[in-house]
């Protein structure tokens, strides 16, 4: 599969989940492994450009496809505006949900550069944050949208 633009080849068991493949085979521990039941959304990565919960996707299913993880958000040493927004607006406290939140936020802004607060809340509704009450996450995504619009 292609992970963050680089082709990787491994021999794996059929039952290996994508989240464990990324973390254990490739050492990409930015993607977190949370509830294991496709509820919490911290394991969200992109599969062919769409956010998916990688605890509910087999690594083999992603074979031959493109995967993008939180490590792939940064471009040429510069953090993605979404990442900058999470810093500027305190979009995280413990940081556990953050990789999934940012991957979903990036996908949302790519589809809709000017989302309403309701759009943002809907987009992240499959993800759970126990620290922020979501308010600062919404603000972080709005910051990223405004920053991108200003550019």
């Amino acid at each position, binding site marked *: 599969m292609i992970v963050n633009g680089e082709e990787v080849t491994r021999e794996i068991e059929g039952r290996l989940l994508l989240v464990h493949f990324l973390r254990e085979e490739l050492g990409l521990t930015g993607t977190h492994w949370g509830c*294991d039941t496709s509820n919490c959304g911290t394991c969200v990565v992109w599969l062919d450009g769409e*956010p998916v919960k990688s605890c*509910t996707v087999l690594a083999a299913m992603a074979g031959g496809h493109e995967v993008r993880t939180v490590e792939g958000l940064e471009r040429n040493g510069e953090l993605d505006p979404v990442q900058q927004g999470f810093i500027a607006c305190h979009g995280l406290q413990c940081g556990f949900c953050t990789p999934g939140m940012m991957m979903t936020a990036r996908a949302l802004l790519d589809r809709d550069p000017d989302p309403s607060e309701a759009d943002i809340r809907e987009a992240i509704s499959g993800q759970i944050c126990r620290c922020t009450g979501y308010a600062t996450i919404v603000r972080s995504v709005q910051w990223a949208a405004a920053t991108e619009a200003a550019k």
Partner: protein
Amino acid sequence: MQVPGQFEYQRATSVEHAIGLLDRLGDTARLVAGGHSLLPMMKLRLANFDYLIDINDLHADLGYITAEPQQIRIGAMTRHRELLESTSLKEHFPIFADAERVIADPTVRNRGTLGGSLCQADPSEDLSAVCTTLDASCVIQGSAGTRVVSMEDFHRGPYETAVGEAEMLIEVRFPLRPGGSSAYEKVERRAGDWAVVSAGAALWLRNGVISDARVGLAAVGPNTAGIPEISALLRGQEPSEELFEQAGDIAARSCEPATDTRGAEGYKRHLAKELTRRTLRKAVDRIGERAQA
């Protein structure tokens, strides 16, 4: 850590290839589409197979929503998000968007499919109730060709369908009739959860009189069930609150809910009644809105 039992992973490159693999491997094999029902069951070891046949590559062939004069055909690999965003379905069957908005969450909807939802045959599953409400039929392909079965015949019981060991659901067809609209309502314990009860309604008017109406309920029996008695009551009548009250009473009486962690039987009967009334009312309102537009 939840991990499925060991299995051989196979990837189907065509419908015929998938059916050929099923034919050869028998009941030791299962198809996996979006995987958001099957993989959780495999992780809990409630489902164990020697072979898993991945059909996601068939999305190019089986991911479509095609409107024809008499029917809408939807490919079995069409994903929830595609159903939610389809302008054709919004126009003809607004019940789809109502239901899709409350099925799981946007990320899960990127993956899950119509065919997977129907083949899972969970009595609480919302798209099954939608298909029951819309009188859909299911196209099943095997090595000998295709056959078409109604939703009533498709679901044999909880987690059981008419799809044979070496067969595959490839398409769902929805008859198009003029003058109708539809709606879906669900009560859930928390966002994205399975339904405590949900109801779908589809209704057709001719000269202000109901020419046909259908109600489908989820989570109140072994399968999502249509209620013919309601259709019989409504046909030939003018829509009114009193009429929908009676329809709700029939829904409450004729479903078979069980008391469980999602709610008590009496509460579920109350919901069946209330949601039946609301969806019938909304379907009629939508016909009116469209006439004004």
